[in-house]
């Protein structure tokens, strides 16, 4: 006969896992529901509980129709372009700025650091209107340049760096306090001896940064890249304002517009599209999730 203590421990563990599962259901039910609706050939059970949570007359038709009725691959391509260049920019800018802030003594260092950190307190959303106007000016300037150089209308320089350009969707997100702060913290962790050794070995500041600091802070750079990827991939507001042609929209904007716009023919196809949009992120997350936990670690301490 199991002892009372044993029963108590089992009850405890049972309650623990029940709570865990309830929370898990709460955070994932929209996706589970979307998945089962996307797989259902028979739509009539979709809004019934609990029937909606498993597929009826399972089929992949809705998923196939997403690709036929939506420029899904175009969106996917655009998301990839935006994410790639945002990551490259954020990592480069943050590494370059983080190093002198962490490791060099120069006049104005404290002031620069405080200025960068202070931007964390500003509501970044307030920058949207001015940035929109700035990019419009960029575009105008590019168009004027095009005129001056006498290039033909095919060049359309306006949409290289102004509104409705990849550049415009990316560039305001490149320099951020978060990345600079993260890299500064990472560089501060490196022992002074290592830098001194490199200096005695004859490395200049650029070589110290590139050949010693960057390889050594690999994990932090990876964490920064991953965070940036997720935020760039999911960014909705800014690209939705900058990009007005369907050919340049990323997933988060294009799919949303199609789902809520006149193209929305059936609820099941919408659910299938939702699932397809979320899957790349989930797969990526499954491989890198430890970075999210450990990367945050650094942010708290």
């Amino acid at each position, binding site marked *: 006969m199991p002892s009372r203590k044993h029963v108590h421990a089992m009850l405890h563990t049972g309650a623990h896992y029940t709570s865990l599962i309830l929370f898990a259901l709460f955070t994932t039910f929209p996706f589970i529901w979307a998945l089962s609706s996307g797989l259902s050939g028979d739509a009539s059970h979709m809004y019934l509980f609990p029937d909606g949570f498993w597929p009826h007359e399972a089929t992949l038709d809705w998923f196939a129709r997403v690709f036929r009725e939506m420029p899904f691959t175009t969106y996917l391509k655009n998301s990839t372009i935006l994410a790639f260049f945002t990551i490259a920019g954020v990592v480069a800018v943050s590494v*370059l700025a983080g190093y002198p802030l962490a490791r060099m003594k120069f006049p104005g260092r404290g002031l620069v650091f405080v200025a960068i950190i202070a931007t964390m307190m500003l509501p970044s959303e307030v920058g949207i209107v001015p940035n929109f*106007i700035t990019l419009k000016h960029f575009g105008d300037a590019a168009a004027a340049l095009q005129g001056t150089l006498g290039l033909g209308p095919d060049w359309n320089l306006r949409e290289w760096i102004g509104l409705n350009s990849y550049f415009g969707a990316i560039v305001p997100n490149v320099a951020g306090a978060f990345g600079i702060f993260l890299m500064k913290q990472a560089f501060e962790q490196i022992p002074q001896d290592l830098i001194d050794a490199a200096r005695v070995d004859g490395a200049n500041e650029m070589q110290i940064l590139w050949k010693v600091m960057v390889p050594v802070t690999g994990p932090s750079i990876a964490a920064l890249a991953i965070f940036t990827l997720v935020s760039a991939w999911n960014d909705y507001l800014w690209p939705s304002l900058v990009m007005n042609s369907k050919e340049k929209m990323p997933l988060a904007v294009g799919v949303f517009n199609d789902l809520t716009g006149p193209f929305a023919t059936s609820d099941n196809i919408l659910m299938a599209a939702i699932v397809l949009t979320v899957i790349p992120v989930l797969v990526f997350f499954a491989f890198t999730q430890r970075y999210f936990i450990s990367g945050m670690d650094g942010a708290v301490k």
Partner: protein
Amino acid sequence: MQSARNYTTTAYLFLAPALILMGIFTFWPVGYNTWLAFHDYAIADGSATWNSFAHFKYIYNEALFHHALKNSLLYLLVVPCIQLAALVMAKLVNNRLPGMTFFRATYYIPVITAISVAGVAWAFVYKYDGMLNGFLGWAGHALGLLASPQAHIDWLGDPGIAIYAVMGFTFWKGLGYYMVLYLAGLQAIPAEVEEAAILDGANVWERFWRITVPMVKPTILLCTLLSTIGAMKAFQEVIVLSRGQADTYTALYYVYDQAFRNYNFGRAAAAGLVVTFFCMLLAIVQFRFFGEKR
């Protein structure tokens, strides 16, 4: 040694990309926004005319802006809910039992999905004939409270309810983020402290309130600061769920609406300035709180 001036030049060369980009896209907007707030701006030809405090006077008297501000303050209700739930969640996954990596990842999924796409899914949940009503009907029927297995609540259409529904979405989306922050805080607590409390005879409930909560106080303060500012700035939820219908304007949604639907950039800038002011005020209050702790 290198000469000092050379060294300083190197440092600023490294900083240059960051400083230039932040100058254009972070610092310049602050000044430009302030300037815009006192002008009428025409997006077509980029012309601006000085109009003194007209925008401020306008929004001061406008009922819609008052509603928006009120809703933004109401939105702060989400802060304590999200903090408590996230802390409990972190506590549940902070151990070495099997499956914890899976649960941690699961709780983080809403954070890493695009707000627009998650919003569409939640719009289906909140629909009049949507999943939430389906679930409530089923539960009510099963408990004998409802005659038919169908509840009739217009989650996003009823002005008395819609803002809370939007807040529910924010709660769902942000939970995992704060869970991870709390997890980091909890992992800094040595296991011996909890074990000592068990030996002293404290039960689960007592341990949570008397050991865990006091020991993660710095994290609680940080998370509260972050989520308070986050709540004040909430508006993407509104864009994707209700588009401001049914009394769901928030302060920044008002800014967005004025700028990109009315194309009244000056008025948007003035409202944005007011919101910035409130955010800074909140940040300063909470930073003072922090400053004493450190």
